[in-house]
């Protein structure tokens, strides 16, 4: 007698079945990303250490730096200020550089988790995986493990970079441990937000909001209570990490708080996973309008609506940086006076050190605005690739109008961001410097960079028109402009020849010079027109 044998009962039938295989897949998916993050962070740490080691050789120069960094505006962007009375390179690294590594790792970790947990679900990949003999929690575990591994890799490279930069081992372990802890904590935050919304974008935005709030809590806390004495500092993972007082008192127990909180967040995430269906979020998607308002008519209105979030977030960030620069201007002038070697970086023009510093920072903010303009062109390309471009171009909308409107909105937003930034930076600088620089001088300095921003925008449009697939190359150019804009004065002659900011008069340190401004304006216009003409002549892909 023959009988169909019953398949052997699979012993893997729990909520965590198949986890090991999924972890392997997740690690494979993230491999190159993790390596790029770790290598870049390592290079940044090494470069920063090198800069600190060469610039702050004498105790006097380090103490001058301590005075600068203890001002409220600087504290908000640095740390709780351990060891300011004996500001060693280690104390300086922990206080000023640590925070930015932590922010970068936090962003990396939170995006990794939403990518694994929510984007996979949104695209339907998770459904395929879950139909296999795989437990309900396995995918969550796999995504978290991938984020933890990436965070740990960056932490390890950071540790090695710090030690290679000549810092002692226990302090480096505390600082790198803080970096890892912050990454874990934001992975935990994202594990929870990924259960709340059905869209990866929204989940990432929620996690970023948590990051922003905890960043601000720490900033307010540190300004009000130096050396982690404010309650607000202790409400933020950044505060816990910096409370280790690496290289000064070096203590490890504050890290435990972060790891306990991470564990709690993961438990909450698992609990939420069991309470919802695949493909849904716990927060209902808000409904929109059933019909468009009359204002939502035409390409400019459509583009503005699409880009509003990007314009506001870039604009807010750039204006806020302008405000910080303005508030710091007073302290910065004292610092430059006590540290003559910085004269290379901040060329003192006819109007003194403050004007020189404001000119350099204006270029920095202008390049950042140019980076926004480039992302706006990238958004036009994304419209094309997502076939929304074809849907609109199949209407009586010409190629000129489609791309021209999007370029126009990017240009108008750039102008608005720069003028508001100039106004805010001018007002704050005028108040912190008591005299020497007027608001309108700074607004003028911001305005005179606009043709150079236009050139960056124009180059991006030209690339989009000629070789859309290579549009990402523009970011190499943005990086180049950024580097030569900030360090042009100390780089070999001629390396900055391809940056439009090289030809922009550095107001308010230098005098106004019209011919280059006019030439750059014409060049920007020519680039945009050439890009639009090229776009008219090519196939629309996607």
């Amino acid at each position, binding site marked *: 007698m023959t009988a169909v044998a019953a398949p052997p009962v699979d012993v893997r039938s729990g909520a965590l079945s198949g986890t090991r295989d999924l972890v392997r897949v997740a690690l494979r998916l993230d491999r190159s990303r993790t390596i790029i993050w770790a290598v870049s962070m390592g290079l940044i740490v090494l470069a920063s250490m090198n800069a600190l080691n060469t610039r702050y050789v004498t105790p006097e120069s380090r103490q001058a730096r301590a005075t600068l960094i203890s001002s409220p505006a600087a504290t908000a962007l640095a740390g709780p200020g351990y060891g300011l009375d004996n500001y060693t390179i280690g104390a300086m690294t922990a206080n000023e550089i640590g925070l930015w590594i932590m922010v970068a790792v936090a962003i990396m970790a939170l995006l990794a988790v939403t990518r694994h947990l929510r984007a996979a679900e949104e695209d339907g990949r998770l459904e395929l995986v879950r139909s296999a003999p795989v437990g309900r929690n396995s995918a969550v575990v796999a995504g978290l493990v991938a984020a933890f591994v990436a965070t740990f890799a960056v932490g390890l490279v950071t540790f090695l970079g710090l030690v290679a930069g000549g810092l002692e081992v226990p302090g480096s372990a505390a600082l790198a441990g803080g970096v890892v802890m912050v990454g874990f904590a934001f992975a935990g935050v994202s594990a929870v937000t990924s259960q709340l919304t059905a869209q990866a974008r929204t989940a990432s935005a929620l996690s970023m909001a948590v990051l922003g709030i905890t960043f601000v809590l720490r900033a307010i806390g540190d300004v009000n209570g130096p050396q982690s004495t404010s309650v607000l500092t202790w409400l933020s993972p950044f505060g816990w990490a910096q409370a280790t007082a690496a290289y000064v008192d070096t203590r490890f127990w504050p890290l435990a708080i972060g790891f306990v909180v991470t564990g709690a967040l993961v438990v909450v995430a698992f609990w939420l996973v069991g309470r919802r269906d695949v493909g849904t979020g716990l927060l209902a998607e808000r409904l929109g*309008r*059933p019909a*468009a308002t009359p204002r*939502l008519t035409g390409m400019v209105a459509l583009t503005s609506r699409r880009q509003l979030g990007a314009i506001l977030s870039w604009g807010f960030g750039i204006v806020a940086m302008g405000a910080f620069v303005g508030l710091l201007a007073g302290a910065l002038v004292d610092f430059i006076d006590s540290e003559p070697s910085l004269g290379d970086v901040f060329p003192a023009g006819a109007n003194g050190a403050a004007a020189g510093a404001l000119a350099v920072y204006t270029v920095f903010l202008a390049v950042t605005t140019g980076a926004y303009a480039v992302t706006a062109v990238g958004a036009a390309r994304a419209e094309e690739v997502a076939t*929304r471009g074809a849907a609109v171009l199949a209407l*009586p*909308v010409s190629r000129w109008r489609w791309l021209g409107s999007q370029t126009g909105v990017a240009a108008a937003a750039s102008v608005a961001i720069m003028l508001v930034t100039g106004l805010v930076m001018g007002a704050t600088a005028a108040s912190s410097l008591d005299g020497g620089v007027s608001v309108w001088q700074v607004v003028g300095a911001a305005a005179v960079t606009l043709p150079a921003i236009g050139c960056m925008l124009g180059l991006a449009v030209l690339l989009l028109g000629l070789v859309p697939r290579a549009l990402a190359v523009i970011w190499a150019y943005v990086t180049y402009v950024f580097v030569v804009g900030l360090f042009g004065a100390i780089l070999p002659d001629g390396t900055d020849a391809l940056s439009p900011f090289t030809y922009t008069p550095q107001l308010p340190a230098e005098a106004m010079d019209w011919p280059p401004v006019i030439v750059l304006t014409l060049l920007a216009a020519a680039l945009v027109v050439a890009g639009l003409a090229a776009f008219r002549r090519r196939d629309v892909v996607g």
Partner: protein
Amino acid sequence: MTDAIHIRGLVKSFGATRALDEFDLSVGTGEVHGFLGPNGAGKSTTIRVLLGLLRADAGDVSLLGGDPWKDAVSLHRRLAYVPGDVNLWPNLSGGEAIDVLGRLRGGLDPSRRNELIERFELDPRIKGRAYSKGNRQKVALVAALAADTELYLMDEPTSGLDPLMEAVFQQVVRELADEGRTVLLSSHILAQVEVLCRRVTIIRAGKAVQSGSLEELRSLRRTTVTAALRDLDGAAAALPSANGVHNVQRHDGHLTLDIDTPSLGDVLALLTTFGVDSLTAHPPTLEDLFLREYSDELATLGVVEGSR
């Protein structure tokens, strides 16, 4: 009257791939024309050339009497397009997307818009990022069908729609046809094309392999006849050698055979000599016509003919 669409010898290459290779297509004004072919045969490329999104490498293309590349904007006032793969703006609701597209066209009739939203049972308040595939498709359908135009270019317009919505779609297309509007319907839902279209073009690897009215195409094919005969043995012996008869099979007292359309009368006369008890005849379906054009490909795919 000139054709709404007239394509002769159209060539379009992407790198080394020749997506369209001397492709021909004619669509008469007021006609609902089926455009058949599997994925990658060149249907979407053809429609994108007609929309002026892609530039033809060679060949003549005329759309509503104009050049789709040079006169894109003015021609687009007179046509509407339904893409097969719809992506909506994530932060706009479906209703907003329909209105934005309609206004870029120069305005849309609100009563027609609302009627279509109701017929397709679309919730216009949902944000683009939250719609399912089928609902995104409905947004594109409402946006295009609400336009009052002469020509509709539809690229697999009902992918992701359920059978009820498919029926609504067919009804709306019939109404457009009754009003004398032209429709180019690219599809691989053969039943849909068979119901809606009087003429079809089958595309294969960038070439038109068949084009004509469904009757013409059917006449090129065989009718399948199944008959219960009194003298089954005699018929089974005589018929295989008769002119125009193929694939004679005998089972359960019935004889099944395929007959070339020109020989249909002669073979039926021959059949009656064996004493017919019952007889059914099936004209070839569009599926048969289509799959016959792809029979060699089916063979490579390991599909046995007749097992479908």
